């Protein structure tokens, strides 16, 4: 698409989308948000970029094949679910490490996996559609 406004705007917007998606991902546990929504927002950012600059540029900017991102997301989700086995708990039981203000958990890792899987899946589909149709 040859639109000056779009191509200039997209450069800023994509970054904003990504930043916002991470924000949504991290705040998810206590406020509206989470990995699923975050993944969708992040993917939307790159979709916008691919409209503005073309799929090839978008792929290059992403650096990693979206399929690999999706599979990695899945792997992270599995590993976070199996981590509880180390503590002899049922799979997908959350483990928490709470330090003063900071709460770390396998649940957050799982949500990151969700984010990546959704992000990868959507971009795989959209890029392939744009390249093919």
């Amino acid at each position: 698409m040859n639109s000056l406004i779009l191509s200039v705007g997209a450069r800023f917007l994509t970054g904003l989308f990504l930043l916002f998606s991470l924000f949504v991902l991290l705040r998810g546990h206590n406020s509206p948000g989470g990995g699923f929504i975050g993944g969708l927002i992040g993917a939307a950012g790159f979709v916008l970029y691919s409209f503005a600059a073309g799929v090839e540029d978008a792929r290059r900017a992403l650096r990693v094949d979206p399929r690999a991102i999706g599979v990695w997301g899945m792997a992270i989700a599995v590993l976070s679910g199996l981590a509880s086995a180390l503590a002899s708990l049922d799979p997908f039981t959350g483990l928490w490490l709470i330090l003063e203000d900071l709460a770390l958990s396998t649940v957050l890792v799982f949500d990151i996996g969700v984010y990546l899987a959704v992000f990868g899946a959507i971009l795989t589909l959209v890029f392939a559609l744009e390249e093919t149709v």
Partner: protein
Amino acid sequence: MLDGASDGAGRMLGYAASILAALILVGMALMAPAVVDDRPVLFALDWAPSLGISLAFMVDGLSLIFGLLISGIGSLIFLYATGYMGDHPQFGRFVLFLFAFMVSMLGLVLARDLITLFLFWELTSITSYLLIGFDHDNPRARRNALQAMLVTAGGGLALLAGFILIGTAAGGYDLAQILTGPGLQDSSLYGPILVLVLLGAFTKSAQFPFHFWLPNAMAAPTPVSAYLHSATMVKAGVYLLARLHPALGGTLAWSVALTTAGAITAVLASVLAMRQSDLKQALAYTTLMALGTITMLLAGAHPYALTAAVTFLIVHSLYKASLFMVVGAVDHGTGTREVAQLGGLGRAMPLTALAAVLACASMAGLPPMIGWIGKELIYAGAETMTGAPLVAAAAVAANALMFAVAGIIALRPFFGAPITTPHHPHEAPWQMLAGPVILALGGLVVGVLAQPLLGSVIGSALTGSLLQDRAAGLHLWAGFNRAFVLSLLTFTLGIMLYLMRARFAALVDPVLRRLPSLDDGWDRVLDGLRVLAAWQTRMLQTGRLTAYLMAVFAVVALALGLTIIRGRPEIAVELPRSAFLWLTAIFTAAGAVLALNTHSRIAAIAGIGTVGIGVAVIFIYAGAPDVATTQLMVETLSAVMFAIAALRLPGITERRSPRRQMAHGVVAVTTGLCVTVIILSVTASPLDRSITSYFEENSYALAHGLNIVNVVLVDFRAFDTFGELIVVLLASFGAYAVLKRKRKAGP
């Protein structure tokens, strides 16, 4: 590592498998004293207790005999295979398949639970498929492997149905319970059970009219033929018949079905065996003959007939495995298996010749081999059966033909004037000699020492497994009785047949040629299935999205409509007072109207998008920001995807006939109405808040999260989320594959 093990690692694997099998043999043998003492060895693990299924095993007389044969012959076969094809680049794979088969077969004969038995039954079909098709570059091998699998696995399905009926009739799948119970002969389900079980057993043991797959299975490497298609797998069918004999046997239907199928198979196969020029094919048909004879004997209910069946089973496994290995050694040493091209090999291959002569003596039923005792018992057993004269006649005919075939296999390749063979004949390596020689000598030893060696085990199979009050004795000299006379008659006929085999050929060949070929019939059935499948695919899978959507929505409308009509749910219509909601509703409906009436695709997409956004707004109003955001994002992305595809297409023009338009309209409106009514009725009924309140109470306490939706997604219901991730990824990868494939296929 499994492939390309040509550096000796493959051979090591073969030896290791052989030793493992030998260890299993020793283990089984150690259980023998307890089993003979009428204390079967039991082992069970719960599998699906809610269905009454357990992974249960039992070693009793019958399974002990099978277990010993499977592990003992298996050990020799692994050794043989190492000599026969140890330098094959995929030998590692071969050993793996063969070992998997051995374990499946052991599981089958040791299973005490019917479902466990079925599981291993199917595993033997699958491993057999892999082994027959081992030479996978050869289309003939692939075709025959598939045929064997479809026939035996098809029978397996019938068997599963039969087992489930047995479970219903007997109140459980535990064999020990079923067999010691009152029997199923008087059950109202007996008819269907019998038909289904016999279908399973006859396909597996290649009984007429399902016998055609077995000769074709000879496409497998010779060690496989020796093991699966003579000594073990094909015996699974007769094992099952013997195993279920106490529960199903003894009726007229049982007797008639087994006698007929067994007798036809035995006689037809032995005639065909005489007419084979390839030694391996000849052996394949003699295997059919043996299976037919055992099936025929299992029709009986007298201890003599059943002792004969069990004894002949052992006899046959010993000599047949030995002979197959002999034929492989001959093939290996000379380069051919054609009878006409072989002769005078005895000098070059003395040990092979020794094994061949001993094994054939057992096959011909000559004293003092175990084969002689087996044949005497067959005749003694035949006398006790329903339709004794016919059974005895069939047995004599089959045995006489067997005698002649044994003569052909033992004498023609090894004696007489030497014939020039493709390779200069040489003896096989020791690995390939151990098996045939040990098994052939075994036939001699257990012949001479039959009662002390086998008497107690066979006795335990008869009294413990087949629930007879006694077993017949195993004696080389049982007195001058009718069986002895029939044996003499068999020898006379056999010698005549051997000497006049040319005239016999001239006599039977025209008849055989006129018989319809079941093998060709099989191909025609498969072709028919393919045509049917293509037709129904064309009918159901039109490839038109409209047709699929129509089907989906019509089913939804029908299901919901029927539910509404039958349930007459209460509906509470409460009109909202908020002007904001009314505006949103009008906005949403306007989007739908736009999508329906425009000729521009972009406008249609915008219309549908409007509907989605309207719904998201309602979610926000109802206090569900997470759901609303997700809805908004999904709506945006799907609008993008629609747009990418749709903008390349021409504008929307109406090409449907008015009737079709009408039908679409009816389905759409009905679906919409039904969904509306259901939702209104849901809101009218009181909400069960127990789950919601659990989440509300524990979201922070247990999961340290304030956003319940997210806590449910990543903690309480994380496994569900994980399942959804798999779906999302698979869907996108599937679409990716389809899109990329199309691009390659297109210009």
